[in-house]
């Protein structure tokens, strides 16, 4: 179930990327997206996910530290 959902999401994502990747005559950049300000939402989401992972890694590191001290 989860796998199917993940592949579906990935397909949608790739499709979206494909749409974005189609270029016209002029060099198309995402300036409009940026000026509308909504790109910051995406940046925030990515930053949140990365901070979450980093915090998790720190907690693993600390647990290991405790185990190492016990031996």
């Amino acid at each position, binding site marked *: 179930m989860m796998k199917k959902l993940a592949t579906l999401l990935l397909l949608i994502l*790739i499709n979206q*990327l*494909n749409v*974005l*990747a189609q*270029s016209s005559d002029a*060099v*198309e*950049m*995402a300036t409009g997206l*940026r000026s509308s300000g909504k*790109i*910051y939402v*995406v*940046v925030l989401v*990515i*930053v949140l996910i*990365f*901070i979450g992972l*980093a915090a998790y*890694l*720190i907690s*693993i*590191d600390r647990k*290991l*530290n405790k*185990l*190492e001290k016990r*031996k």
Partner: protein
Amino acid sequence: MTKYWWKALSILLILYSLIAGLLGPVPTLPIINETIRNLYYHLPMWFAMFTLYFVSVIYSVRYLSRGKTEHDLIAVESVNVGILFCFLGLGSGMIWGNFSWGDPWPNDPKLNGSAIATLMYLAYLVLRNALEEEQKRGKISAIYNIFAFPVMIVLMYILPKTTDSLHPGSGGNSGFGEFDMDGAMRAVLYPAALGWILMGLWLAQIRYRIRKLQIHLS
């Protein structure tokens, strides 16, 4: 005592590269468009992999000269994490290539070279598992590792440079540096690379410490 500063630095540098990499100015080029930003995330994977494999070689040499089991463990775990970064680099490159070159796997010398190099390092892990005796395993795999490293450099870096490759900076292609006139991209790329290198070393260190605890407990 374990020092934490470089781990914090790794997180901060990657955070900076995520934010500045998405919002910062980039050269406007046809076909690649905004995907030029992939450089900040795709290339550091390879930097991290090179560094981890290099660390592995250093510890393989040290293992051969001193015979300390710890050095052998550091060598293996560095390769383990290096392979992870290699797959992340291959995967991100395939997505990027699919949209910029029109094919996830064109017969590019750099791609084929890295595929062979990956198989070589997977063979290193298989070789280790095949040998039962600890000292024999350590010695043989250390020697294999020392030979694999220069071959990997030649396959992934030197050979693609000499032939026609789709990758920038190969076979007369212009590198990204030529478009980056004001150094705005370098200001993101290099911190990102350092951040991911440190992250790779951190992961390898965690794996090594788990391995040592496992040995201690058994």
